[in-house]
């Protein structure tokens, strides 16, 4: 328990450092968010008063000192106020609120699927040492080696554009007026269908890592004496494999938590290719339009998922490995 609290303290500190960095980083970038807003409003003539009002709206009042900007930024943050998106004119939290579920749903489920199947296959491949599943390795490695976006295009063209098996753009069927977003069958089906290709991209591209990682640790673990003891005890095969797998899975668990932290940022290419309405697509748009508040907001989300996932990894590790519980 003490270990967990100590880790928690560390994460609070790390979060604070990251939030601070987030503030200064954006201000160190060349260009001015206000300029970007103005360039969009080119046609309109703007009075200095309006400019001031805009600056206040976006929290970019350059007459304030950096320190007071920083503290009002922190204060706003604590209230859950991330400012207003300069390109969309709506609060950043609202943008995040609509985008985040899509990304988490898509990349999250794809990551979980890749982890679960990859690890299971890895256990079997490691346990059997050879056989049918071993032939799977080069195939999986091929998909890992192909860049994300090329894999995405391949799937889009074969199964989407020409094969017409799955739809290949948007998060759901936006052209169908009967479709009401919400918890109803037709909408969910549409979402799953639209998610299939991007999810397959993410899963295919990452599954080889899980298989190989698990297989390698499994192979070395099987040489441990305690696995031999389990066999000598006359336990059934699957129990012996279980003893080995239970020990071999520890590194995979921490890798899994780390890969969860990449969910938010790791899907940019995939989301762009499939015009998926998620956070990856959004950050791309934010960079194009110079929407600093939105970028900041997305960065914050990334920071907190990384930290949260790491904390989860720590807790999972402590729960699974008794040796990690005792610390000096």
């Amino acid at each position: 328990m003490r270990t967990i609290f100590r880790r928690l303290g560390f994460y609070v500190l790390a979060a604070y450092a990251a939030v601070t960095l987030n503030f200064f980083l954006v201000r160190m970038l060349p260009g001015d968010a206000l300029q970007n807003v103005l360039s969009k409003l080119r046609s309109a003539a703007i009075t200095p008063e309006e400019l001031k009002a805009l600056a206040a709206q976006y929290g970019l009042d350059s007459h304030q000192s950096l320190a007071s900007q920083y503290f009002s930024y922190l204060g706003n943050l604590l209230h859950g106020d991330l400012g207003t998106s300069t390109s969309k004119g709506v609060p950043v939290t609202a943008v995040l609120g609509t985008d985040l579920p899509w990304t988490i749903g898509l990349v999250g489920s794809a990551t979980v699927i890749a982890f679960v199947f990859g690890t299971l296959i890895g256990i079997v491949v490691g346990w059997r040492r050879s056989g049918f599943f071993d032939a799977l390795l080069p195939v999986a490695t091929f998909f890992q080696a192909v860049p994300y976006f090329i894999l995405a295009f391949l799937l889009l063209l074969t199964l989407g554009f020409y094969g017409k098996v799955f739809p290949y753009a948007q998060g759901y069927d936006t052209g169908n007026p009967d479709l009401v977003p919400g918890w109803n069958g037709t909408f969910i089906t549409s979402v799953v269908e639209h998610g299939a290709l991007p999810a397959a991209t993410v899963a295919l591209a990452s599954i080889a890592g899980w298989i190989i990682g698990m297989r390698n640790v499994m192979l070395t673990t099987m040489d441990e004496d305690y696995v031999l003891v389990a066999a000598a005890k006359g336990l059934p095969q699957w129990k012996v494999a279980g003893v080995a797998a239970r020990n071999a899975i520890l590194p995979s668990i921490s890798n899994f938590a780390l890969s969860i932290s990449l969910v938010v940022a790791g899907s940019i290419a995939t989301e762009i290719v499939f015009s998926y309405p998620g956070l990856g697509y959004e950050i791309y748009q934010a960079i194009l339009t110079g929407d600093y508040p939105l970028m900041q907001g997305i960065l914050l989300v990334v920071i907190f998922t990384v930290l949260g996932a790491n904390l989860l990894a720590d807790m999972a590790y402590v729960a699974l490995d008794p040796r990690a519980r005792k610390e000096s």
Partner: protein
Amino acid sequence: MTASGHLGEPVLEIRDLCVDYGVGKKAVRAITDATLTLHRGEVLGLAGESGSGKSTLAYALTRLLRAPGVITGGQVLFHSRPQGSDTTRTVDLLAAGVEELRVVRWSELSVVFQSAMHALNPVARIDAQLTDMLKVHRRKMTAEQRKERAIELLRMVGITSDRLLSYPHELSGGMRQRVMIAMALALEPQVVLMDEPTTALDVVTQREILEELMQLRQRLGFAVIFITHDLSLLIELADSIAIMYAGRIVERGGAQELFHSPRHPYTLGLINSFPALHGEKVRMEGIPGSPPALTSLPGGCAFHPRCTFALDRCSEEIPVLQRPVADSDGTERTAACWLQTDGQTVPQQLALPASAKLPAPRGEAAGAELPEPDGSIK
């Protein structure tokens, strides 16, 4: 004087066991024609230098050899007689099916591994590791009974029951080895294989554990195959000893006989390479040279390049295990040495009379008390 009263009928017979590492052209023979018999309640010591094949032999007979170890021939007959039963059932462990083998493992033949540090599952509690085989082999036991048995087992090896919920890393080395022993005895097996069970421990703990082990053996009456490179330990502990060299058994005999009157030059070398606690100071003599690599064994007797008594014949023909000329009657001892065949002049050190000055060890090695006729020493 074991629980079964005397060294009874054989419980484990190893016949012409051969083990290779690797297959095809690159195969290296690790064990050649090993033949050994373990009697009920007997402690059989298996000694030899590193790489002589003693552990390989032990793992082969339980079919726990790791790849690339392959058993290429022989039989391991296990004469199982469950407690309270009068009928003996014989299983060839090398020919047994997976399921048949699984049932024999641990319930009738268990193993104590060299390093308890690595032999206990680091992520499972002691109670889980003491009861998982009960779950599999004693299906009728309830969870409550299993727990009771685990407590009983721990008490048997001198560990309090509050350790039941500990993890292996929370125990000391000696405690871990005790847990391992408790684990090995959980199903009251007829044979326990011990692969250097105390090598990783300091000498004090080593002695404590060995004494406990021997008491448990007296009480429960299981037979032991004790593998070690420490011959001095075996002479105290074992009823009979088999000496291995380069994958072959080169001498076999009662522990005291073997110590007082070795018949194979290699055994003599081993005995001469540890100091006596009493008596005058003598310059220690090791065995010159080092054990041969199994990939390039010398022709003939594998020991001949290091042997001070080597004959011409030794580099040409491989000697077989046979009764030494000096022991003409009664004893079960054998040695694989050309010096011990008829018509040879046996060096004096290898022809000492087999009479033991000390009383025979526990397992009354039959006939050991009889002095040999002097005529055999020429």
